[in-house]
């Protein structure tokens, strides 16, 4: 199969407009004859479900949460980018497009990214109309701030809770359609598999998380808006429930998985404090505007510090190494996320890390407080400092914060064409669940933009083109395929419940996470990846023979829910390793130690790897097949990123 990205012909700036015109339309009276399933109710899912229902389609929306408002989009802090140029500082659609392509280290599709930048301006209009309380200037107009690497102020925000406010906006639009009867909501319901009829996605099989009932749902199209897979690492900034199961089930039914090894490691997270740790908490990137990152200059000092013989504030200026300022004098502490993360790892690997574990670096506000006063710092970061104190018990006004990188976002995901359709006709992937817009590294404040762009402004157009070519005949849920897939799901459930092994699901998840973090995390080597692959294969075998899942299917059963998810994470982990092994270059968040410049920076290989790696599942325990979608750059020049 040749991957057809369906990128429209013509100049970059006209592609989307032309494409919308060339897409077939569904007659308004016919829309009510089409059913659409939306899985996931985060930014992408809620905005898609609401917008499609407004158009007249019948929507069924599914979430494993108790309410659509809980999706992890809610936790995004910083903001949402849009090329409004309200600040008169030189922003434009092309500049947002350019920054995103470059930030992604030239591993994203030009056409998709341009469209994202183009519709970004409409997202802000939509959210304001819904009553999202964005930050305002005294004159009553919208405020902006600068963010992650951009040289213009294009980020709209609602205090430190932008994701929350945008999600509640989309949730309110969704709730309105539930009240109108155009969306039927299925909370506490998890998608277990996709059902295909004649090669098209025609429904899903779900499990009711309260009663355990395995149910089937038919539709003319299925949208997966199920987020990212960062929890494959066990510890990440993702919510506890984030998982890959929906996407992975679709993958096993024929949807190719693209660039799985592209994961984003965020430099400013609160470090791990012990084995009991269940998740990592992100501290906003904005802290690097004023905090200085350092570790002790020598191993000996670091050791004394770890043993508690000295305190951070006792260490003299000349015994400190402000390593980002030293290595990157022009960008200093404000280098992009991937560079900051990697360098923190280097100094910790040298034995100069702090905290009892040696896996942390300092983020010090002493000089900023001296320069600007405590009051100014309090105004800027007060809530973050409070949060830090609540979690660690230390006061960052008095002692330096400790931070360490953590998995935050996954740029990889289901392969989709320009219409957001996967390689399964009728099956779409939106938001973090697809791979399309961020290349090998996502810029700050761009995840919210993409989720809402896909849901509000892309899918309402592109799905029409597909549905217009699908007969408006009710999909019959009594088709034998539905009962066949439902039976497979039930078999898997009873298989998991009957293993009756000795080790808990979390035990396996933690071991998987360690393998992935050590060998497929911030730095990767061929040797380490090969070792990890063997370990994961063994772990999979062990899981299926020794996992202990208690209770029954016919009840609320958290260990059964988790067992499904971890089983899929194990398989995904192996694919991520294959992908990282295949990509013999370093780009963005993917750093292969063999491929670096003499200064230790990522070394891309545009000649051989300027492509999307899309993987096809071919069968249980078989090596997946690689398909390449070449990336063509007609509007930007590929350059080596430098932040010196």
């Amino acid at each position: 199969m040749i991957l057809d990205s369906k990128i429209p012909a013509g100049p970059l700036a006209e592609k989307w407009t032309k494409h919308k015109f060339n897409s077939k339309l569904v007659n308004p009276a016919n829309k009510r004859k089409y059913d659409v399933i939306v899985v996931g109710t985060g930014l992408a899912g809620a905005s898609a479900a609401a917008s499609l229902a407004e158009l007249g389609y019948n929507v069924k929306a599914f979430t494993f949460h108790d309410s659509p408002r809980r999706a992890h989009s809610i936790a995004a802090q910083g903001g949402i980018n849009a090329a409004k140029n309200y600040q008169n500082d030189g922003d434009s659609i092309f500049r947002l497009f350019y920054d995103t392509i470059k930030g992604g280290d030239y591993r994203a599709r030009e056409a998709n990214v341009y469209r994202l930048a183009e519709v970004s301006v409409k997202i802000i209009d939509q959210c304001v109309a819904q009553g999202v309380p964005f930050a305002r200037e005294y004159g009553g107009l919208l405020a902006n701030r600068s963010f992650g690497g951009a040289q213009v102020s294009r980020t709209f925000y609602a205090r430190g809770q932008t994701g929350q406010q945008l999600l509640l906006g989309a949730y309110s639009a969704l709730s309105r359609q539930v009240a109108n009867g155009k969306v039927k909501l299925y909370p506490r319901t998890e998608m277990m598999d996709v059902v295909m009829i004649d090669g098209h996605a025609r429904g899903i099989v779900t499990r009711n998380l309260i009663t355990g009932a395995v149910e089937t749902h038919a539709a003319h199209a299925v949208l997966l808006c199920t987020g990212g897979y960062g929890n494959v690492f066990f510890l990440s900034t993702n919510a506890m429930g984030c998982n890959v199961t929906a996407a992975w089930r679709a993958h096993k039914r024929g949807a190719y998985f693209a660039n799985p090894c592209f994961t984003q490691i965020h430099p400013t997270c609160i470090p791990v404090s012990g084995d009991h740790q269940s998740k990592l908490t992100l501290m906003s990137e904005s802290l690097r505007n004023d905090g200085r990152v350092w570790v002790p200059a020598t191993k000996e000092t670091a050791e004394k510090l770890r043993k508690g013989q000295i305190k951070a504030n006792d260490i003299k200026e000349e015994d400190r190494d402000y390593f980002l300022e030293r290595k990157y004098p022009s960008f200093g502490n404000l280098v992009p996320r991937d560079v900051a993360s990697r360098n923190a790892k280097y100094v910790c690997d040298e034995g100069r890390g702090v905290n009892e574990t040696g896996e942390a670096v300092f983020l010090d506000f002493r000089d900023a407080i001296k320069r600007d006063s405590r009051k100014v710092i309090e105004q800027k970061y007060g809530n973050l400092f409070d949060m830090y104190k609540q979690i660690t018990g230390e006061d960052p006004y008095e002692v330096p914060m400790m931070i360490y990188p953590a998995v935050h976002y996954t740029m990889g995901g289901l392969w989709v064409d320009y219409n957001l359709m996967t390689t399964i006709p009728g099956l779409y992937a939106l938001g973090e669940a697809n791979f399309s817009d961020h290349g090998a590294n996502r810029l700050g404040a761009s995840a919210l933009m993409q989720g809402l762009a896909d849901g509000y402004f892309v899918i309402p157009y592109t799905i029409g083109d597909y549905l217009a070519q699908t007969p408006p005949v009710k999909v019959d849920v009594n088709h034998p395929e539905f009962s066949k897939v439902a039976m497979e799901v039930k078999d898997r459930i009873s298989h998991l419940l009957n293993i009756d092994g000795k080790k808990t699901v979390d035990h396996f998840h933690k071991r998987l996470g360690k393998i992935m973090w050590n060998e497929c995390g911030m730095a990767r080597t061929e040797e380490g990846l090969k070792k990890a692959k063997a370990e994961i294969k063994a772990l999979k075998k062990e899981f299926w023979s020794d996992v202990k899942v208690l209770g029954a299917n016919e009840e609320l059963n958290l260990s059964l829910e988790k067992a499904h998810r971890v089983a899929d994470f194990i398989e995904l982990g192996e694919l991520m390793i294959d992908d990282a092994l295949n990509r013999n270059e370093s780009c963005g968040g993917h750093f292969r130690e063999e491929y670096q410049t003499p200064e230790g920076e990522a070394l891309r290989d545009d000649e051989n790897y300027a492509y999307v790696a899309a993987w096809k599942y071919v069968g249980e325990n078989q090596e997946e097949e690689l398909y390449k979608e070449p990336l063509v750059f007609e509007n930007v020049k590929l350059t080596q990123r430098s932040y010196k």
Partner: protein
Amino acid sequence: MKLTLKIWRQKNASDKGGFATYPVDHVSKDMSFLEMLDVLNENLTEKGEDPVHFDHDCREGICGTCSLYINGKPHGPLQTTTCQLHMRSFNDGETITIEPWRAKAFPVLKDLVVDRSAFDRIIQAGGYVSVNTGGVPDANEIPIPKTVADLAMDAAQCIGCGACVAACKNASAMLFTSAKISQLALLPQGQVERKTRAEKMVAQMDAEGFGACTNTGACEAECPKGISITNIARMNREYFSAVVSSENM
């Protein structure tokens, strides 16, 4: 630390339920409260006993999924969500009592998990501005004074966890409902549907079986996001001025 946990166990919605006592050992002060329960659950699972079910997700204090009535207070001793509560707030040797939210409109599903879908239905009754996707004015064509936007944001911060209901002796959902009504009543975008919104949301709140407000202020005192009861006063004004001039009821 060594602790004794008295936890409400209830097999399902129709089970009567009751307390069970579990000793836990090796609790570190840096653990979050939910991580302490994770450790308990790992131990229970290893012994072949059903783990304690509780709702949780983001563990950053923003999704509103976690609940728990700890030692007689929703979300425990601090004014924060349970996921942001750490064991350093407790003493070695202490007995901690953990119950689900108790309210008629929040039936227990299992152990500490309750059904809060009543909140969704209150929002569905009118907690939105009726605009479709597309065809809206440019964002800066709706200027909003900063002070108004800030007040709206104060109300909009509600995470829908239900602590206000759990804290209230009448199990009233006034704080939750008033937060949304306030946000939209303050903003120009919410004006068109202002009256019907107040009427419909209040009616739904009553239909769900939530109690009335008797101004004890327990909701505000326990709200992890500091939502103010001035929102309830605003909602009452909105509601009364809506019903006296009602066009649709």
